[in-house]
C-alpha cells in the first residue's frame, strides 16, 4: 500500500524546473528575433522621421525656391523698369547733349559765315569739318524752305535724295521749337538725329546731324542700365536687323530669331509677352514708320539673376542635408535609447521565461519603462518566491521537511555527474524502518508521523556536511546521499545513523524502539546509473532487513537471493508457518452506525515469525502474492475464519466476518469450489461472510474476475470493495461489480476531520455509494470526531482504532461482552 507513494519514475510535473537549461537555450535562440524587432522599430522610426523631414525640407525648399524665383522675377522686372527709365533718360540726355553740341557748332561764326556766304563745296566741307568735331556720322544742311543744301558723312545718294522726306518733319519740328531730335534710320543704320538751326541770327538753314547708334553706345547704355541693350532695325525692304547689341553668341542669335519677319508692332507685342525663361524683355519703339522702325530691346538675364540665388540654394540644400543627417543620427540615438531598455527588458523577460530569477531587470528611470522594469522585477520576485514554494513543495516532504524522492534523485544525478568528471565515488543509503507499519497500525497514524519526524531530525543531526542529503522517499523509507563518500565511509556513516536511530523515541509517554535496515550502494562500483544504484541500494537494504543486519553494502548476490532463493525461502517459510500454525487471525470490529451494533469484524492475518517476530500482512503478503503461497495463506485464513464463526455462532455470537481475498485468489480457478467445500465443512452460511477484494484485483483481468465475483455473489457471499479511492476504479466497474459495500480507504478517513478535500471525498463516496445502493464502510476511524462526522455523513459502518483494535478471538469476545448496550442510533433519533 505504501508503494504507490513513491513511484520510481520521474514526476513529469517537475520537468519544467529540471529542464531550465533547455528552456534557456530556446530563449537564447529567440533573442536575435527580438533584437531585430527593436532594430526594425528603430528603422521604421528613422525612416518615418527622415521622410517627414525630407518632405518638410522639400516643401520649405520649394517654397523658398519659388519665392526666390518670384522675387527674382519681380526684382528683375523692377530692374528692367528702372533700366528702361535710365535708358530713355540717357537717350534723352544724349540727344540734349548732341543738340547743345550741334548748337555750339552752328554758332561758330566761321561756320555760319561759310554756310551763309560760301559755295556748295565750301558748305559741304564746313559741314563735314564741324560735324566731325562733335562726332556726327551724318551731316545734312537743309535750307529754311526744306531743300538740302549740303550733305556730308556716310550718306549714300539714294538717301540724300530722300532726305527731304526723311527729315522734313524733324525740320518742321525744329522750326516750331528751335531744335528737334529723334531716332531715325539713316541708310539702314539707326541714328540719333538732331536738328538745329543755323542762325545769322535769323535761321538761314537747318543742320541735321546723325549720330550712329552702334555697339559702343549699346555697351555704354548696357553698363548704365545694367541690362542687355539691343537695337533692332526694320525696313520694309530688307526686314529685321540687329544693329547693335550687348548680347553675344547664342543669346544674340536667339533675339535675332525672335525678331522674325513680322511687323514691328507685332514684334513689340511678342517681345513684351516673351515668357521669362532666360530673359525678361522690354522692347521699346524708338521710331516706327511705315517702312522702317527702330526698336530698343532691353533684356535682363534671368539665369544671371538666378545665379545670385544659387549660393542661397546651395546653403539651403546643405542645411537640409545637415538637418537630415542630424535627425537620422538623433533618431538612431533616441530609438536606441528607447529600444535598448526595451531590449534589455525583453532579455530580462526571456531570462524569466528560462527560469533564471537571480538577475534583476535593467535599472530603469522613473519613466514608464522604469515602472515596467519595476513591475517586471516585482513579478520576478513573486515568481521566484512562488517557484521556491512550489519547488519546496515539489522537492520536499511536507511531513518531515526533508527532500523528497524527486529532489533526492535530482541531487543523485548531479552528484554522479560531478563524480564522473572528478572521478570520485558517490554513495547512497536506503533506510527502511523496521516494524513501522506495526507502530502505525497499533498506535495510530499521528504517532507514526511523529516517529517519522523524529527519524528525520536524527538523520539530519548525523549528517554533518551540507552536501550530504537525507531524504524521505515515502512511507518509512529514507535515503541518504553522500556525494563524495566511498563504501567504507558510507558504511561508517550507516553505523552512526543506526546508533542515532537506536536511541529510544518517546512519543506520548510511550517509549518506542526504532530500528532501521540500511542498504548502501556506491558509484561507480555498484552502478553507473542513478536508477541502478538506487535499486542496488534497495536490494542491499532488503538483504539487511532479511538478515536482520543493521547495514549491508550491496553485493550482486543480494539480488539473486531476492529474486530466487529469497522468495523461495520466504515461500517455504510461509508454507511452514501455515503448517505450524505460526499464523493467527486478529479481528477488528466494525460498528454498524445505524444500529450501533458491532457484530461484524474483519479477519486479519498475522505471522508470529520465530525469528523476526510479529509480522503484519504488509510485510509478508506481498511476498506471498509473488508466489502461489498466497493460496495457502488465504485458505488458512478462510478455514480459520469459518471455524471461528462457526464456533461463535454455536456460542451465540451472531458475528459476521470479512475476509480479504487477493488477486491471485480470484484468478485461481478453484476458488469457488474450495469455498463451497469449506462452507460445508464448517457448516457455516455464506451470508455470514463478506469477501473483500481490492480494485487492483479486478483491474488485472476484469472478465475472469468479474465472473468469479458473480459466482461468489450467487453463492451468498457479500462482496466488499476494499481500499476504495486509492486506486483507479471506474464507476462503470463498480456498477458492474456485484458488490454490496465499499470500504473507503483509511487514508481519507484518517484525515477527514482536518482535510476538507478528504472530507469532500468521503462525503461524495458515501453519497455515490448510497445512490448505487451500496453500503459504505469507513476504515481508519481514529477519533470520536471522525466517528461523529461519519454519522452525520450517514456512513453505514465504521472501523478503526477508535472503535476497536485488531485483536485475538478471545479478546474480541471480551470486547463485545464489555461493550455497553448499543446506544440509540443518532440517525434514527434525528
Amino acid at each position, binding site marked *: 500500500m505504501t508503494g504507490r507513494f513513491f513511484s520510481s519514475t520521474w514526476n513529469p510535473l517537475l520537468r519544467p524546473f529540471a529542464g531550465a537549461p533547455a528552456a534557456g537555450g530556446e530563449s537564447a535562440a529567440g533573442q536575435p528575433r527580438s533584437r531585430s524587432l527593436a532594430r526594425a522599430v528603430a528603422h521604421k522610426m528613422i525612416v518615418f522621421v527622415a521622410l517627414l523631414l525630407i518632405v518638410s525640407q522639400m516643401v520649405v525648399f520649394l517654397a523658398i525656391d519659388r519665392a526666390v524665383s518670384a522675387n527674382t522675377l519681380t526684382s528683375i522686372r523692377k530692374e528692367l523698369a528702372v533700366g528702361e527709365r535710365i535708358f530713355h533718360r540717357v537717350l534723352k540726355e544724349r540727344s540734349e547733349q548732341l543738340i547743345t553740341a550741334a548748337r555750339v557748332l552752328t*554758332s561758330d*561764326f566761321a561756320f*555760319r*559765315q561759310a554756310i*551763309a*556766304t560760301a559755295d556748295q563745296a565750301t558748305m559741304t566741307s564746313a559741314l563735314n569739318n564741324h560735324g566731325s568735331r562733335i562726332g556726327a556720322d551724318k551731316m545734312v544742311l537743309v535750307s529754311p524752305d526744306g531743300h538740302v543744301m549740303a550733305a556730308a558723312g556716310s550718306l549714300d545718294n539714294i538717301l540724300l535724295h530722300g532726305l527731304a522726306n526723311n527729315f522734313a518733319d524733324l525740320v518742321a519740328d525744329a*522750326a*516750331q521749337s*528751335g531744335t528737334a531730335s529723334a531716332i531715325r534710320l539713316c541708310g539702314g543704320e539707326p541714328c540719333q538725329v538732331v536738328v538745329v*538751326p543755323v*542762325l*545769322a*541770327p*535769323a*535761321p*538761314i538753314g537747318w543742320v541735321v546731324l546723325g549720330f550712329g547708334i552702334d555697339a559702343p553706345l549699346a555697351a555704354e547704355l548696357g553698363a548704365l542700365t545694367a541690362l542687355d541693350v539691343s537695337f533692332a532695325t526694320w525696313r520694309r525692304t530688307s526686314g529685321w536687323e540687329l544693329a547693335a547689341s550687348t548680347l553675344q553668341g547664342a543669346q544674340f542669335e536667339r533675339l535675332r530669331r525672335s525678331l522674325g519677319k513680322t511687323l514691328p508692332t507685332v514684334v513689340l507685342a511678342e517681345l513684351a509677352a516673351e515668357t521669362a525663361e532666360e530673359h525678361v524683355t522690354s522692347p521699346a519703339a524708338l521710331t516706327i514708320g511705315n517702312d522702317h522702325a527702330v526698336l530698343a530691346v532691353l533684356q535682363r538675364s534671368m539665369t544671371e539673376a538666378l545665379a545670385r540665388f544659387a549660393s542661397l540654394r546651395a546653403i539651403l540644400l546643405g542645411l537640409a542635408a545637415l538637418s537630415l543627417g542630424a535627425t537620422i543620427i538623433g533618431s538612431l540615438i533616441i530609438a536606441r535609447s528607447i529600444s535598448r531598455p526595451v531590449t534589455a527588458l525583453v532579455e530580462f523577460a526571456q531570462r524569466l521565461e528560462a527560469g533564471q530569477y537571480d538577475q534583476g531587470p535593467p535599472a530603469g528611470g522613473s519613466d514608464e519603462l522604469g515602472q515596467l522594469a519595476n513591475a517586471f522585477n516585482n513579478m520576478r520576485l513573486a515568481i521566484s518566491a512562488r517557484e521556491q514554494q512550489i519547488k519546496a513543495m515539489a522537492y520536499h516532504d511536507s511531513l518531515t521537511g526533508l527532500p523528497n524522492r524527486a529532489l533526492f534523485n535530482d541531487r543523485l544525478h548531479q552528484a554522479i555527474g560531478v563524480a564522473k568528471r572528478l572521478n570520485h565515488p558517490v554513495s547512497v543509503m536506503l533506510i527502511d524502518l523496521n516494524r513501522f507499519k506495526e507502530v502505525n497500525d497499533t498506535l495510530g497514524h499521528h504517532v507514526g508521523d511523529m516517529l517519522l519526524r523524529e527519524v528525520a531530525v536524527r538523520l539530519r543531526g548525523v549528517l554533518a556536511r551540507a552536501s550530504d542529503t537525507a531524504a524521505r522517499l515515502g512511507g518509512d523509507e529514507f535515503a541518504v546521499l553522500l556525494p563524495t563518500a566511498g563504501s567504507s565511509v558510507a558504511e561508517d556513516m550507516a553505523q552512526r545513523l543506526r546508533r542515532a536511530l537506536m536511541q529510544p523515541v518517546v512519543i506520548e509517554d510511550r517509549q518506542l524502539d526504532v530500528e532501521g535496515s540500511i542498504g548502501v550502494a556506491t558509484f561507480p562500483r555498484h552502478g553507473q546509473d542513478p536508477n541502478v544504484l538506487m535499486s542496488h541500494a534497495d536490494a542491499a537494504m532488503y538483504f539487511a532487513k532479511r538478515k536482520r543486519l543493521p547495514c549491508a553494502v550491496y553485493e550482486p548476490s543480494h539480488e539473486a537471493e531476492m529474486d530466487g532463493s529469497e522468495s523461495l525461502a520466504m515461500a517455504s517459510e510461509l508454507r511452514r508457518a501455515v503448517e505450524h500454525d505460526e499464523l493467527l487471525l486478529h479481528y477488528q470490529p466494525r460498528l454498524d452506525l445505524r444500529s450501533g451494533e458491532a457484530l461484524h469484524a474483519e479477519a486479519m492475518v498475522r505471522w508470529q515469525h520465530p525469528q523476526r517476530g510479529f509480522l503484519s500482512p504488509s510485510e509478508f503478503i506481498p511476498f506471498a502474492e509473488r508466489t502461489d503461497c498466497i493460496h495457502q495463506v488465504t485458505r488458512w485464513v478462510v478455514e480459520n475464519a469459518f471455524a471461528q464463526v462457526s464456533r461463535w455462532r454455536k456460542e451465540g455470537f451472531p458475528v459476521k466476518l470479512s475476509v480479504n481475498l487477493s488477486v491471485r485468489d480470484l484468478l485461481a480457478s478453484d476458488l469457488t469450489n474450495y469455498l463451497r467445500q469449506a462452507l460445508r465443512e464448517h457448516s457455516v452460511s455464506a451470508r455470514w461472510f463478506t469477501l473483500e477484494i481490492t480494485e487492483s484485483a479486478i483491474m488485472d483481468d476484469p472478465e475472469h474476475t468479474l465472473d468469479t465475483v458473480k459466482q461468489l455473489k450467487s453463492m451468498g457471499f457479500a462482496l466488499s470493495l476494499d481500499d476504495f479511492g486509492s486506486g483507479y476504479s471506474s464507476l462503470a466497474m463498480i456498477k458492474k461489480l456485484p458488490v454490496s459495500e465499499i470500504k473507503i480507504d483509511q487514508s481519507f478517513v484518517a484525515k477527514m476531520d482536518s482535510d476538507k478535500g478528504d472530507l469532500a471525498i468521503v462525503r461524495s463516496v458515501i453519497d455515490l455509494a448510497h445512490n448505487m445502493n451500496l453500503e459504505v464502510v469507513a476504515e481508519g476511524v481514529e477519533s470520536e470526531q471522525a466517528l461523529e462526522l461519519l454519522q452525520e455523513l450517514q456512513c453505514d459502518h465504521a472501523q478503526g482504532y477508535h472503535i476497536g483494535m485488531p485483536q485475538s478471538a478471545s479478546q474480541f469476545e471480551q470486547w463485545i461482552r464489555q461493550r455497553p448496550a448499543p446506544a440509540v442510533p443518532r440517525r434514527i433519533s434525528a
Partner: protein
Amino acid sequence: MLRIAGTLCAGLLLATAVSAGELRAQVSAGGRPLADAVVVASAEAPPATTQAGTKTSTIIIDQVNKEFIPYVLPVEAGTSVNFPNRDNIRHHVYSFSPAKQFELPLYIGDPAAPVLFDKPGVVVLGCNIHDWMIAYVYVSDSPYYARTGADGTATLPTLPAGRYTVRVWHPRLDGSEAATAKQLAVPAQGTVETAWEITLKPDFRIPRAPIPGQGGY
C-alpha cells in the same frame, strides 16, 4: 527817340514839289495790331526826278544794353547806316544777308565808317558776341515806305497822286512779301486807307544769355 528824321525830311521835300495824298495802312496779325511791319508803296510810273542827293544822310542803329535799336529799320537803297555802340562792351556786328554782307569786328563806340546799304532787300543784322541781338534793315527800292507803330498803323504822308503797288513786310511774315502787294490809287489830296491781316511765322529769337545779377533778356 526816333532817329528817322531824314525820312520825314524827304517826305516833306516831296510834298512841296508835287501835289500829294496820304496812305494810312493798318497791319494786324491774328487780329492784333502788328508793330515793326514795313509798308512800302511803289509807284507804277516812277517819277522822273531822282532823289539821289537825299541819300547822303546817315541813319543809325544803336546798340544799347546788348540790343539793336530799332529792331526794324526801313531805308531806301543807297542809305548809309551807322552802328554806334552805346554799351561799354564790344559788339561784333555782321550780316550774311545777300542784300548786304558786312562785318564790324569788335569795336567800342562809333565804328570807323557807316555801312552803305545799296541793294534793296532785307539785311539781317546780328552780333557775333551776343547771339540774341538781331535787327533788320529793310532796304527799299522805293522811297515811299513807313514802319508800323505799336498801334499797327503806318502812315505814308506825302504820296504823289497816282497808282501804287503797296506791300507789307515783317521779320516774321509767313509767305513772300510780293504776295502782300496791293494796287491802289493815291489821290492828290486826302487819305487812302488800307489794311493787312498777315500770318506770322514763329518768333525765332534766341534767348538772351543771362547776366549774373540780371534775369531774362
